[in-house]
């Protein structure tokens, strides 16, 4: 995919299908060690150890409609072609954690892209799921926690247009501080 944020949107769908109620997305950009780390953790139904080991194979999938699943294999390939790798930890009944890392400066590493649109897409389509998004770039950090937003909103649904606009602005300000106002 053209942006890593699209991969993130894609693998978060796995957590949603696994009926997670809380999904944590961690991004760490460490320019000193030249590493980009993306970690998606959910409290969904988890997988058997056997499936966890095989899931990077495109011809292994949990779904019943057809025999291929490309989300994880595509992201795995994106990692390995950038001197990185992927690790999947999962426990049935507890949840799954997918960790990916990349050589930050690798010529083949896709840009992170528009994380705001990815978060807005997830929140608008899955108002029942809580998202914690933590993005660290060297010594700077931003955090969006939909549990806090929900507390402030009371009965108002989190996918109300006015709330989504607030999230968009909140993240825009956050990215400005992360990237020092530079366009990304």
């Amino acid at each position, binding site marked *: *995919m053209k942006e890593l944020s*699209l991969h993130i*949107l*894609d693998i978060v*769908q796995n957590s949603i*299908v696994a009926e997670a109620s809380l999904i944590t997305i961690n991004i760490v950009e460490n320019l000193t060690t030249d590493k980009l780390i993306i970690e998606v953790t959910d409290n969904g139904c988890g997988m058997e150890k056997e499936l966890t080991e095989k899931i990077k194979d495109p011809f292994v999938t949990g779904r019943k*409609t*057809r025999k291929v*699943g*490309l*989300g994880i294999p*595509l992201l795995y390939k994106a990692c390995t072609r950038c001197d990185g790798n992927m690790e999947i930890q999962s426990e049935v009944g507890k949840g799954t954690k997918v960790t990916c890392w990349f050589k930050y400066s690798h010529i083949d590493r896709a840009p992170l892209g*528009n994380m705001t*649109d*990815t978060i*807005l*897409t997830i929140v*608008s*389509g*899955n108002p029942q799921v809580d998202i914690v998004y933590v993005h660290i770039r060297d010594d700077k950090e931003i955090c969006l926690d939909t549990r*806090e*937003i929900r507390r*402030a*909103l*009371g*009965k*108002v*649904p989190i996918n*109300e*247009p*006015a*709330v*989504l606009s*607030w999230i968009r*602005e*909140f993240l825009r*300000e956050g990215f400005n501080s992360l990237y020092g106002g530079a366009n990304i």
Partner: protein
Amino acid sequence: MKSLKDLEEIRKKTLDTINMRKDQSGTRVVVGMATCGIAAGARPVLLAIMDEVEKNELADVVVAQTGCIGMCRLEPIVEVYRPGEEKVTYVKMNPSKAKRIINEHVMQGKVVQDYTVGAEEK
């Protein structure tokens, strides 16, 4: 700076309109959001649809997401369900085509034939 206090304001302002929205069973617009759809450009299509719905204050329109519809080569795919009418499937969408669907089909009831799966598969 955006703060959680802004959300309290939003809560006060929007509670009434939400109650209004509950009574109506309106149009559903569904965007395919699986690996195939995302890779083909479904994210900007979805956001353009949400924008257009908000801009025109279409309170009775629900924008939803679904998985793979099974025609990956025709993604991004958008389905429109208007009450009492047959479902219409639009294929190879982009943000400007999606806006046209909201303006012509969702708002005026005129199906945009050029973009339907039927026109594509002819």
